[in-house]
């Protein structure tokens, strides 16, 4: 707690990159701040951090940050990150995605990255909508909410991101909101430290599309709604189930110690190479057959 607030300045790219693309009042900036604080507190070298993203508003975050950054294709960030992590196991690979990015087009990659339990930190910024394209319904749009592609109300059930991550095999799963910024950077810090697939869902908002279409007010109003509709796990457990519905439950939902993919693959290499004295050289591979 004695740690000073870091200067975000040291982590930003200053040439040509600002102002950012996000609408004023957007929650994504709060997530970026939390990520910077977490990395600063862990005292990670900027050279040792890779930030990988997909497409969408959240996907634009890496370009502003002075790490090894990769803005990939829609939904596929985890697949790119998987290859990068295997090639450079020493890198802390953090994947930042939106809800449509991670759970719709990227849903399969999400499940399989969690299933492999590869050491990636996945942060999903959930604003319940496709913001960049102007407010279409996403896999996390609440039932009955409106979107530009659900003008009469959404009839699809929202996907529970954290529960899906846990079911698929993630080691660490936590949820917070952009209102709870201090808690959020703690969760991100824990997620980065965790060896294995870790997931942090951040409940955010999009006042310019979702908020406007559903008449939820300004960015500040929506931040307040996050405060009012969220509660800690302990508080949630005391509530009867019918009162829990529609609430955002914050907290570390799972924290398990399980074998991690890259470490397991190192064991595969040891098995394939046999006893150290018989290490196979490239030239001998052909002859060995």
């Amino acid at each position: 707690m004695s740690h000073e607030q870091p200067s975000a300045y040291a982590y930003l790219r200053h040439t040509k990159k600002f102002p950012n693309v996000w609408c004023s009042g957007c929650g994504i900036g709060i997530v970026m701040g939390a990520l910077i604080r977490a990395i600063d507190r862990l005292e990670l070298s900027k050279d040792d951090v890779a930030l990988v993203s997909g497409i969408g508003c959240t996907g634009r975050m890496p370009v502003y940050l002075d790490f090894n950054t990769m803005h990939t294709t829609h939904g596929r960030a985890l697949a790119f990150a998987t290859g990068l992590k295997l090639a450079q196991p020493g890198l802390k690979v953090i994947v930042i995605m939106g809800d449509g990015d991670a759970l719709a087009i990227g849903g399969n990659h999400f499940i399989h990255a969690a299933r492999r339990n590869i050491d990636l930190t996945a942060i999903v910024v959930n604003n319940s909508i496709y913001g960049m394209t102007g407010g279409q319904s996403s896999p996390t749009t609440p039932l009955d909410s409106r979107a530009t592609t659900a003008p009469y109300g959404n009839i699809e059930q929202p996907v529970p991101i954290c529960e899906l991550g846990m079911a698929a095999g993630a080691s660490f799963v936590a949820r917070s909101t952009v209102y709870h910024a201090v808690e959020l950077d703690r969760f991100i810090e824990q997620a980065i430290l965790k060896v294995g697939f870790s997931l942090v869902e951040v409940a955010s908002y999009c006042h310019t599309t979702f908020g406007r279409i559903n008449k939820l007010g300004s960015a500040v109003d929506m931040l307040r709604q996050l405060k009012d509709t969220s509660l800690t796990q302990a508080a949630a457990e005391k509530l009867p189930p019918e009162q829990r519905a529609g609430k955002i439950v914050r907290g570390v939902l799972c924290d398990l110690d399980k074998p991690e993919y890259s470490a397991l693959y190192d064991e595969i290499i040891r098995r394939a190479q046999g006893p150290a004295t018989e290490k196979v050289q490239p030239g001998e591979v052909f002859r060995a057959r």
Partner: protein
Amino acid sequence: MVLKFMQGNEAVSWGALAAGCRFYAGYPITPSTEIAEMLSRELPKLGGKFIQMEDEIASLAACIGASVGGLKAMTATSGPGFSLMQEHIGYAAMTEIPCVIVDVQRLGPSTGQPTSASQGDVMQARWGSHGDYPIIALSPSSVAQAFELVVTAFNFSEKYRTPVILLLDEVIGHMREKIELPDPDSVTRLERMGTNVPPEWYKPYGDAISDVPAMASFGSGYRYHITGLLHDPMGYPTQRLDEIDPWIERVQRKITRNLADILLWEEDDIESVNTVVLAYGATARSARHAVKLARQRRHKVGLVTLLTLWPFAEEVVARVGHTARRIIVPEMNLGQLALEVERVAGRQKVQRVNRADGEMITPQVILDAIEER
């Protein structure tokens, strides 16, 4: 050197290892699966890594990620998977990240006929991803050539920072043939040009005399941005025309000004003949035999076997078109590369021989075409 009897798919795997491939991500699909199976066994022996991904989209994504991490990376697939990979072929072209994509062509469209041969992905290899981008595609016509060309594919990929496609067909992929495997140490291996400038000077997409900027690996102390958006020399997104146009010109130029290096073909007596058979892949084997038979019957026939399909060997075809009265283009499709031959040599000169039912074009069919007047 060791004498072996093996499949084209196996030769591709050994060739990839000899070329320095240390990462493979793939998804099972007939008729390419042997490559994944072999590399899952052989890569870890060399300290390399194999991963079976959830689909072909993720496979090529993982390869690109590994390449950014500094490993030479490859994936292999067939038609349906090749369709899925188009997204990231475009991404690799846009971001100039080396990777090799092997497509063992099978009969399409859609699921088609998984164990039947085809050359139906020729145009997809050129134009499969959206937008304009340069691409290199190579096509072997023997098991030995599969080994050679996968090495070449890696070398081109690293040298020009571009995705390279190796177009096998089911025949070459599954056929067993004699091959002299070279000593891996004797194989020419090119590495991507790295950088040693101070990190603050590094421009990942800056001008280079060769038109191919140096590429630093993530984690090597050079922090930079990679994006599928059009970008400036620093890799940052741009909408400025004075930054977009130079990028478009440079990535085209890095291929077009190196055609002398990239275009590979074999020609057999194309001077003073009136007919030339132009073929590639498994069809080139039938063509070779047909030409031999035709010569025994005193027909003046030449043979061109294209190894580089893309960029298209315009100069070669123009030269052939200049001397020969007729160019016969046999393909296991309904006429794909023939379109390019017609574009360069003129439609009147081109005689197509096509078959797209999964069976090979026999020498007799080509011989009949040669004897057709």
